[in-house]
């Protein structure tokens, strides 16, 4: 449907349809973020032998995040006097816009996806890199030493971990012969790539947690060292934008992990009467759960360990994986 729309002549109606679809997706994502945060807090609560939010919205605290967002919206919007004002205002926008842009190419099911472009995988990697600029800008514009250190750490970390992240996926691209996410899902109809590329999966998962700036790699906003890193000076709605982009990336990264390694919307044999969307939802939720689980169980690592781990452990393993994959692929072709 989208493909036809993209090729039709432009008119106000088309614009309206695109706009409507984008708004719809935005609300789906906002809904996910609202309940993603709640479930994260609940899971963390259970794992730490606490209850978690249980006051607003019944026994399960179902309206807790809504109340939090409402609080953020009516908070005073502060801009420090010595801040670099234009950049301070622009930074949350630069950080959030790419987070929403990457969702455009992700195939959720065979019917529910927006753009089916040939280089979908690279597109995700490239566009998600722009957020780093937003974060660095925020750290700089706040004119605060903690936020500057946080911004610097974010830049160093996200650039260092983007390389093993991309390198770990070369194995998948070798096996599929395409960068198109739909082709990658189609190639996993029989065997998921998590079984064919276990090393790549481990490297990818570690690097993706680092890209998401989550514990144990949350150095850019390490609360106990930097107050809260690059967004110390932000408040209210602008701060909410940073949080929102973080969780939208979590949504996107969990989707990408599902699509690349867990077979997307493909079902397990004999269970294909269950609709594709449900399969996707189940796998997505599993990835999300593991992300929260990691957050609760690991301590934060030191900045120098972070860099050494990225460059001296993950990158060589990812490169070795490419070599191994190419070798095995050629060997299997011979027989």
């Amino acid at each position, binding site marked *: 449907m989208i493909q036809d729309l993209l090729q039709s*002549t*432009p008119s106000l109606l*088309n614009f309206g349809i695109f706009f409507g679809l984008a708004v719809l997706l935005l609300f789906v994502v906002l809904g996910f973020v609202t309940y993603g945060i709640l479930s994260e807090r609940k899971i963390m609560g259970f794992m730490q032998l606490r209850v978690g939010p249980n006051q607003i919205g019944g026994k399960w605290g179902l309206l807790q995040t809504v109340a939090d967002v409402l609080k953020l919206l009516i908070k005073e919007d502060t801009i420090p006097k010595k801040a*670099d004002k*234009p*950049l301070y205002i*622009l930074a949350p926008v*630069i950080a959030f816009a790419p987070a929403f842009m990457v969702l455009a190419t992700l195939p959720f099911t065979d019917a529910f996806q927006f753009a089916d*472009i*040939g*280089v979908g995988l*690279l*597109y995700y*990697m*490239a*566009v998600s*890199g*722009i957020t*780093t*600029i937003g974060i*660095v*800008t925020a750290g*700089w514009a706040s004119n605060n030493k903690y936020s*500057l250190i946080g*911004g*610097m750490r974010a*830049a*160093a970390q996200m*650039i260092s971990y*983007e390389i093993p992240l991309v390198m770990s996926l070369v194995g998948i691209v070798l096996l599929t012969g395409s*960068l198109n996410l739909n082709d990658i899902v189609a190639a996993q109809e029989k065997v998921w790539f998590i079984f064919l590329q276990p090393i790549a999966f481990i490297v990818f998962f570690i690097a993706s947690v680092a890209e998401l700036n989550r514990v144990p790699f949350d150095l850019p906003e390490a609360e106990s060292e930097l107050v809260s890193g690059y967004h110390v000076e932000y408040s209210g709605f602008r701060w909410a934008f940073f949080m929102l982009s973080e969780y939208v990336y979590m949504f996107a990264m969990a989707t990408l992990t599902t699509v690349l390694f867990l077979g997307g919307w493909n079902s397990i044999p004999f269970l294909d009467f269950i609709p594709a969307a449900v399969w996707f939802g189940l796998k997505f939720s599993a990835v999300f759960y593991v992300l929260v689980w990691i957050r609760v169980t690991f301590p934060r690592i030191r900045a120098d360990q972070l860099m050494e781990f990225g460059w001296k452990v993950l990158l060589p393993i990812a490169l070795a994986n490419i070599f191994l994959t190419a070798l095995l692929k050629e060997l299997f072709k011979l027989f």
Partner: protein
Amino acid sequence: MSLSGELIAFLGLALVAILGGVLLITLTKVVHMVIALVFTFLSIAGIYMLLSAEFVAVVQILIYSGAITIVMLFGIMLTKHQEREEPSKGRWGKFSLLLAVAGFAVAVYLGIYNLHIPVQPTTLHEENTKQIGIELFSKYVIPFEVMSVLLLVALVGAIVLAKKDDKDEEGDQL
């Protein structure tokens, strides 16, 4: 000329690219200039996308607006580089600049207006990632390898330079 979606997108992207370029020249703070540069890079990537050169567009974002800009920001922020650049003043200078710009515009307009680029149907836009890969590893393999050697030399050189610095500092501390 009919108003197609492509044209609207091109006009928007071209406007942002030019605005970014103009801001890059007129802004006084170095960090602001880099951000303006990011917008130019991004809209150029968008124009590549319109020309259905997807791979080039994505690599443009990945390398230029992702990596290079962040390295530039990093350098500027860490070194406390001269934060402001004083704009040069002078009436005659500005006037001659205007003349030069106008002259250049007229020259380009005259050059382009009657230019005919013969359009021949090609298949370059289909699966261009694959085509680039095949060309690169069959026809242009030697330039490609030479490039990689060059990059390796640059890498080793950077490491040697960084190592030297370290030793000197240690010596100072002792």
